[in-house]
């Protein structure tokens, strides 16, 4: 197994980077669809962020195992994108059923968001980055979790901004999506301020 060996400090820095400097939405532009679609109310954004974090963490673990124990021995590394879509999609379905049966409270909180992220590019992106960078198992899971946290941070902040904008009285041409996109752009610029920091 040719994975990069990361110390505890390296793993923690990796996680901090995934939340701030390498934020999935603002620097990689993954997961823009839920970022714009589910950010109209802060409570919705929290639910979506929690669901993404949850799925990213679990799928980070499962896709890592699938890659190194199934695809690598068979010499099919180049088909990982296709395989991961299949694995993540069925994984989310199983998680949904499991939650409905055993953790109804969590299901009612995350339930409607889980199907939305079955084939979300942020989730797939986190899994692929793990393989691309050659992270080991623990860093892969940590990276997935931190990327999810970064996503949650971004979407919750943005939902707060949008909640304020709802009562604004902008010129007609800016109403709705144009203003939302401008706000998203400003927020991305603010986050780019983190990129100067090197850990």
């Amino acid at each position, binding site marked *: 197994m040719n994975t990069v060996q990361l110390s505890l400090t390296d793993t923690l820095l990796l996680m901090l980077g995934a939340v701030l400097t390498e934020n999935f939405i603002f620097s990689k532009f993954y997961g823009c669809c839920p970022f714009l679609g589910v950010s109209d109310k802060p409570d919705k954004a929290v639910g979506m962020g929690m669901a993404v974090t949850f799925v990213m963490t679990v799928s980070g673990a499962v896709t890592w195992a699938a890659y190194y124990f*199934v695809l690598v021995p*068979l010499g*099919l590394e180049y*088909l990982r994108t*296709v*395989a991961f879509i*299949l*694995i993540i*999609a*069925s994984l989310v*379905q*199983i998680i949904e*059923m*499991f939650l*409905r*049966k*055993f953790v109804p409270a969590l299901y009612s909180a995350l339930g409607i968001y889980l199907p939305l992220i079955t084939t979300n590019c942020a989730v797939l992106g986190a899994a692929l980055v793990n393989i691309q960078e050659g992270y080991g198992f623990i860093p892969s899971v940590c990276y997935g979790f931190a990327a999810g946290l970064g996503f949650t941070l971004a979407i919750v902040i943005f939902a707060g901004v949008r909640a304020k904008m*709802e*009562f*604004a*009285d902008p010129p007609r041409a800016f109403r709705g999506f144009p203003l939302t996109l401008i706000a998203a752009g400003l927020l991305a610029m603010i986050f780019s301020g983190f990129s100067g920091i090197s850990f």
Partner: protein
Amino acid sequence: MDYIEILKTAGVFAGLGIAAGLLLVIASKLFAVKRDERIDRIAEALPGANCGGCGRSGCAALAADIASGKAPVTACTVGGAATAQKIAGIMGVRAEAPMRMRAQVMCSGTEEYAKKKYAYSGARDCIAAVRMGGGDKLCPNGCIGLGTCVATCRFGAISVINRVAVVDYKKCEGCGACTKACPKQIIKLIPYDSAHWVGCMSVEKGAVVRKQCDVGCISCKKCEKNCPSGAIRVVNFVASIDYTKCTGCGICVDNCPRRIIWSATRQNGELVITRLAPENEEN
């Protein structure tokens, strides 16, 4: 070209797909949750507008509550009698037909009649305006007219005309979502065929109302004294009509010196809403 390689790849992915499929089947059997199948049937019978008028997040939530007995079968006011009948059939109970209602904004204080205490230019939202000393109109119970109810209405039935919200009775389904959204609580549900209503909710004394608005109830009690059926009463300095007693004779309309009792009559099956023109203070 190595055909074996292609076959191997196809085989592996077919296997992966079948394995995932089998896992899902096993999981769905293993984690199956017993669900009241009436919930789905009730949800189908509901209008599906997700208006929130019943106080729940949407039609699915109401369906679950009706099935578990937490809500009556008539809980959906939008669906009216037809929906209540269908749901009663599913639940195996008898439904008493709910009366069709419509929302009415109980304020007549348009721009030209209601006096203002300051010029408001803040956020276009009634709740925001209320925090600024109760809004710009002097009357503490007047319509702010910034359209919080408009944004709440799922049927597009409300519009703000001349700084007073107006409900289009043709589009209104009587869900009551606006009555809860209004920070002044001046939107009321009245029977759909109500002949009259008092277009004011000011609870100030007459002398104060005179200073605040040209079309406010001054609690003169002329309507109360002249009503032959005792349906209209002035309580807390404002007149209101008891619809269980009102016969729709219209005597109160002619007696009101402020001309704020509105009338609705059926003409060719459609409601026509009218009001006598307000008189000037001097007359």
